[in-house]
């Protein structure tokens, strides 16, 4: 009998497994659209219309950065909370309810997007991941997103519930580090999603259903970015959690400092949200002063990442030294590079260091004129979410999947090749995207060239840049194929008793060493809310004052569709029914409560 996660938490392992498999399905779909896109845009191989490119792009974006990342992270978070508190979830039906909500949400949004390929269905949502009004998606898309986000809220409540129950039994104990990380990340997520929830529920969904005539495009855009920057930390935090709590273990060492890991997560909670305006440096209608404040906050948000870089590398080095490593640099050779889990996560971290640089440029206010909406930005986030997050998730899956299925990994060598291929593919793709961005090549367009002018490169050529992007895309696709082969191979394997123990890395400098105030989540939440209010109240008031709550007289694109009317009727009907039944329920229960 082994001591894997599934042995201790069989019911929870099923939830985590379901979350992982859902995320892998999204990864597969996202990957298919990714390769179609990379070959089309570089004009190497095309079989779709350029007009359909944007449907492909929407699908790639939403499946990758919403479904793949978030489904995976809810799996990791469930594992982290149950493992580190050493207790199962409070109510497994409650846990399945949020898995269900997220799944229904994904299916609705996915159907709305994919229906864009079928002309005979008048449903579409080719609005890209950012869904800027006045571009309008079918209401099904917005409803799907709402259900998905509500699912994550319920998931967060589930983890908080576990922690509260645990705290009652352990009143004086420090919050175990993985749980601490989950809770701070979720508080950040609750604050951040207020922006997108307001944008969708108050403006975009009623607008798409035809209940309100117009929206203020700058307002919904600003509310999107209120959520749009912290969402990248929502993807990144689970990767950080894995780097802090798992990578030292895989390297054969211990976490260098538990207190600094907590400091890092507290800083992310405080600073992730009041920075969204740095995505709007080039927006009219927002004063330069607000942009400067957003920049200052963004620059200081680098600090927890710099801190993480040191702490994580020092933890890895600790492993290398324990394995006999010596010297200033030669200790690197003592690391377990043949282990796909370690190698994948370490390579992900290496490319994240490169992403750090392009992120600093993105954070800069006036230099944004150079890179805004260019391929540079695409290069940047393929290093962050596309590698730091995605490669870490894939690599750690080689450890997790055996833990939650109880089956041994199908093939370690294939796994090692897979993570290395991803690293090489991303290196080709992103270095050329950064360079292409510097010469002004835009993101989010179906064509590599325009008719009236040509892009000019100082070094190399446009053809070479496109070739590198396409080559990178092909290598990434190959890497995905190997990944799925391994996951499927493992899933069809048989139960094994020879699995590594479940657990996470110990710390050299433990939580006893961390000031107790770090665990005061109420305090940090309060400060985070105050910072958000300071950063956003004046800009939002100014935007509403200028353009009005519902904006100028604008027309939705594309124009309203037939099926919307049915849905509008259905939603209205259901909404009324729900309100009625809620009212009846309240009416019936109120006397009991009073009694």
């Amino acid at each position: 009998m082994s001591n894997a996660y599934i042995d201790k938490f069989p019911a929870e392992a099923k939830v985590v497994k379901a979350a992982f498999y859902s995320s892998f399905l999204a990864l597969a779909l996202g990957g298919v659209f990714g390769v179609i896109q990379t070959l089309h845009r570089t004009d190497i191989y095309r079989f779709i219309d350029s007009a359909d490119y944007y449907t492909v792009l929407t699908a790639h974006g939403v499946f990758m950065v919403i479904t793949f990342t978030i489904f995976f992270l809810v799996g990791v978070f469930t594992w982290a909370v149950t493992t580190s508190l050493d207790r199962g979830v409070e109510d497994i039906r409650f846990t399945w309810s949020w898995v269900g909500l997220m799944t229904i949400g994904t299916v609705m949004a996915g159907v709305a997007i994919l229906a864009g390929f079928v002309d005979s269905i008048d449903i579409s949502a080719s609005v890209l991941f950012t869904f800027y009004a006045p571009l309008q998606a079918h209401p099904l898309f917005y409803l799907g997103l709402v259900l998905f986000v509500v699912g994550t809220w319920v998931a967060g409540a589930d983890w908080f519930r576990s922690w509260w129950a645990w705290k009652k039994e352990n009143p004086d104990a420090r919050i175990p580090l993985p749980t601490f990380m989950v809770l701070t990340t979720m508080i950040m997520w609750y604050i951040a999603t207020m922006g997108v929830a307001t944008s969708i529920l108050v403006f975009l969904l009623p607008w798409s259903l035809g209940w309100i005539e117009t929206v203020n495009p700058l307002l919904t855009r600003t509310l999107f970015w209120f959520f749009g920057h912290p969402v990248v930390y929502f993807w990144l935090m689970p990767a950080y959690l894995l780097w802090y709590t798992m990578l030292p273990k895989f390297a054969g060492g211990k976490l260098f400092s538990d207190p600094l890991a907590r400091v890092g997560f507290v800083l992310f909670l405080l600073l992730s949200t009041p920075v969204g305006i740095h995505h709007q440096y080039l927006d009219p209608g927002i004063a330069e002063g607000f942009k400067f404040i957003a920049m200052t906050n963004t620059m200081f948000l680098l600090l927890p990442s710099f801190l993480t870089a040191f702490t994580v590398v020092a933890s890895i080095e600790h492993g290398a030294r324990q394995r006999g490593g010596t010297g200033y640099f030669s200790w690197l050779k003592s690391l377990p590079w043949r282990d796909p889990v370690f190698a994948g996560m370490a390579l992900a971290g290496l490319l994240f260091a490169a992403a750090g640089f392009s992120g600093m440029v993105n954070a800069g206010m006036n230099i944004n004129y150079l890179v805004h909406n260019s391929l540079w930005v695409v290069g940047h986030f393929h290093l962050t979410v596309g590698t730091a997050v995605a490669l870490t998730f894939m690599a750690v899956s080689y450890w997790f999947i055996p833990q939650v299925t109880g089956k041994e990994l199908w093939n370690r060598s294939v796994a090692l090749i897979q993570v290395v291929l991803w690293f090489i593919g991303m290196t080709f793709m992103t270095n050329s995207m950064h360079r292409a961005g510097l010469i002004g090549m835009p993101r989010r367009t179906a064509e590599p060239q325009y008719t009236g002018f040509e892009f000019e490169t100082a070094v190399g050529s446009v053809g070479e840049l496109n070739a590198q992007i396409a080559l990178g895309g092909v290598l990434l696709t190959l890497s995905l194929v190997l990944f799925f082969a391994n996951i499927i191979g493992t899933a069809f394997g048989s139960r094994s008793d020879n699995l590594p123990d479940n657990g996470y890395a110990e710390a050299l400098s433990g939580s006893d060493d961390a000031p107790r105030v770090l665990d005061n989540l109420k305090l940090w939440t309060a400060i985070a809310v105050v910072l958000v209010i300071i950063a956003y109240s004046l800009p939002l008031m100014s935007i509403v004052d200028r353009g009005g709550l519902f904006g100028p007289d604008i027309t939705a694109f594309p124009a309203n569709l037939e099926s919307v009317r049915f849905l509008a009727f259905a939603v209205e009907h259901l909404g009324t029914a729900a309100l009625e039944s809620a009212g009846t329920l309240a009416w019936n229960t109120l006397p009991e409560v009073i009694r």
Partner: protein
Amino acid sequence: MSQATEEPEQLQEIGHDEYNPIGTLALIGLYFVILVLLWLFVYFVEFLGNDPTVIGAVLTMVGLQ
């Protein structure tokens, strides 16, 4: 078949007080230098060399009067 992660072979136990992450300091020092050089290059060569650049409209408005 081997395991996903074999227990790394550990030769020695290094405690908190006897561990100095000098390798990390060296690596991150190198990273610092690269960051500074790249920043200077991208800001002063790529960005400022990419004229024309947007300049203060306020100055122009004054000039118009």
